[in-house]
């Protein structure tokens, strides 16, 4: 099978105020179709840089990035990207916010609105179509941002700490909801987090990035059955995964 995303020996160094700051060093990884991969690492491990490289906002200094087995001239618009902040546009109501990628693609408003409305129920946003983002809670804003990413129509979704700013309960609720949506529609997800429990709970496979410069220090397959249940955190497999990952991240276990 062709990987959705493949990074071959990718390095990236930033030059800032006369200093060279290496962000990623010789990173190679593959994401297979339908997979749910989480990427974990301490701050400064270049997680967001990794995504910016994948979506084409940055170009690697060395190495190559393949999407569906090809190295396109521009990667912009080929992957669904959800940045850390929801970045909903305050002047668009929720419905018009989520169809933003369709606007960019030049799809007629009436068509993309109809397409989006079908998904509102599934994304837990029904009844909020005409509200402005300022009226939404944090959890609802993330749902809207996720629906916007969904509507890019890209098979592969890159989610950068989407639940990082949410309270613990909302976060768990959204984790389960994300997993159910993922299983129902079978898209490929790459999910950045700095929360070890979250990384294990969601993933088929966890990729650990080491710090300064970021490089892949480990890939760990999570052998827990699907569908996942929050009760599985008490499972010994879960516990051993968390312990290993914490060890890789240099936390004393």
């Amino acid at each position, binding site marked *: 099978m062709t990987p959705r995303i493949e990074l071959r020996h990718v390095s990236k160094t930033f030059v800032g105020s006369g200093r060279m700051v290496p962000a990623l060093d010789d990173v190679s990884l593959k994401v297979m179709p339908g997979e749910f991969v989480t990427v974990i690492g301490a701050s400064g491990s270049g997680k967001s840089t990794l995504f910016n490289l994948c979506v084409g*906002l940055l170009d690697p200094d060395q190495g190559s990035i393949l999407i569906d087995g090809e190295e396109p001239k521009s990667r912009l*618009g080929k992957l669904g990207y959800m940045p850390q902040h929801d970045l909903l*546009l305050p*002047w668009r109501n929720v419905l018009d916010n989520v169809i933003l990628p369709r*606007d*960019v*693609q030049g799809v007629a408003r009436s068509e993309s609105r109809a397409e989006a409305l079908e998904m509102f129920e599934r994304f837990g946003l029904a009844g909020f179509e005409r509200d*402005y983002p*300022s*009226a939404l809670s944090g959890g609802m804003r993330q749902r809207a941002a996720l629906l916007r990413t969904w509507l890019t129509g890209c098979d592969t979704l890159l989610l950068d700490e989407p639940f990082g700013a949410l309270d613990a309960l909302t976060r768990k609720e959204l984790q389960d909801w994300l997993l159910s949506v993922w299983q129902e529609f079978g898209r490929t997800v790459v999910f950045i987090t700095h929360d070890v429990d979250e990384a294990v709970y969601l993933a088929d496979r966890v990729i650990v990035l080491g710090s300064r410069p970021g490089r892949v220090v480990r890939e760990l397959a999570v052998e827990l059955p699907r569908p996942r249940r929050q009760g599985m955190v008490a499972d010994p497999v879960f516990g051993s995964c968390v312990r290993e990952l914490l060890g890789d991240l240099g936390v004393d276990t």
Partner: protein
Amino acid sequence: MKWRRDVAPPLVLVAVLVLGWFFVARWSGLGSFVLPSPGGVLRAAWETRGLLLEAIGTTMLATVIGLALALAAGVGLAAVVDFWPLARRALYPLLVVSQTIQILAIAPILVIWFGFGLAPTVSIVVLFCFFPLTISTADGLASSDPESIALLRAMGARRTQVWRMVRVPSALPSFFTGLRMAVTYSVVAATIGEWVGGSPGLGLYLLRSKNSLATDQVFAAMFVTSLLSVALFLLVRGIERVVLPWYHSSQRQEQWEGQGIY
């Protein structure tokens, strides 16, 4: 009720002030050419209504033409400054200096260049109004969120799409702030132009009234000028509310007031 909250307080205050003015004019013993009474001002306005209406027409024509030109110049300059950082560095100080030039010094020069008539008046309106428009539009454009721009680029948006979907909408609130300031200055700017350049608008009416010590007519012209400015201000605010419903959504104001943050 909005009327009671927003409209009634200033109306009551104005009524009290006019009443105070009435009593002072009546009992202080000042002559009517020093301080005319409210009734005297109204009478003077009514008696010269033909002249006054014509003057309003002339002044408003110059104001509207001037505003339109200032709008084009302001928005154009802001776009240039935004597209081209070198232009920003080069132009910004000049823009500020342009506002320190004595309008009373430059007005006669404009009359020498353009002759008597509409042109010098219009130029003065432009001089007054393009500055707030340029600065506010440029600041608005600069304020758009780089992360949102990155998101659109990641979606594959072209430069023009980024402009249309992020940069322009996020600049609009600031632009309207500038426009409100500009229209508030504009009528006064036009009367100054007419005062110096002699085109037959409110400025000339004011000048002639002053020269003949018709203080009541000076007051009348002053109030008419204010009313016109306020009318323009309200018109822009009305447009703003229609164009930027998200910015003026009632839920925002209620959030602030409801939480007692004021």
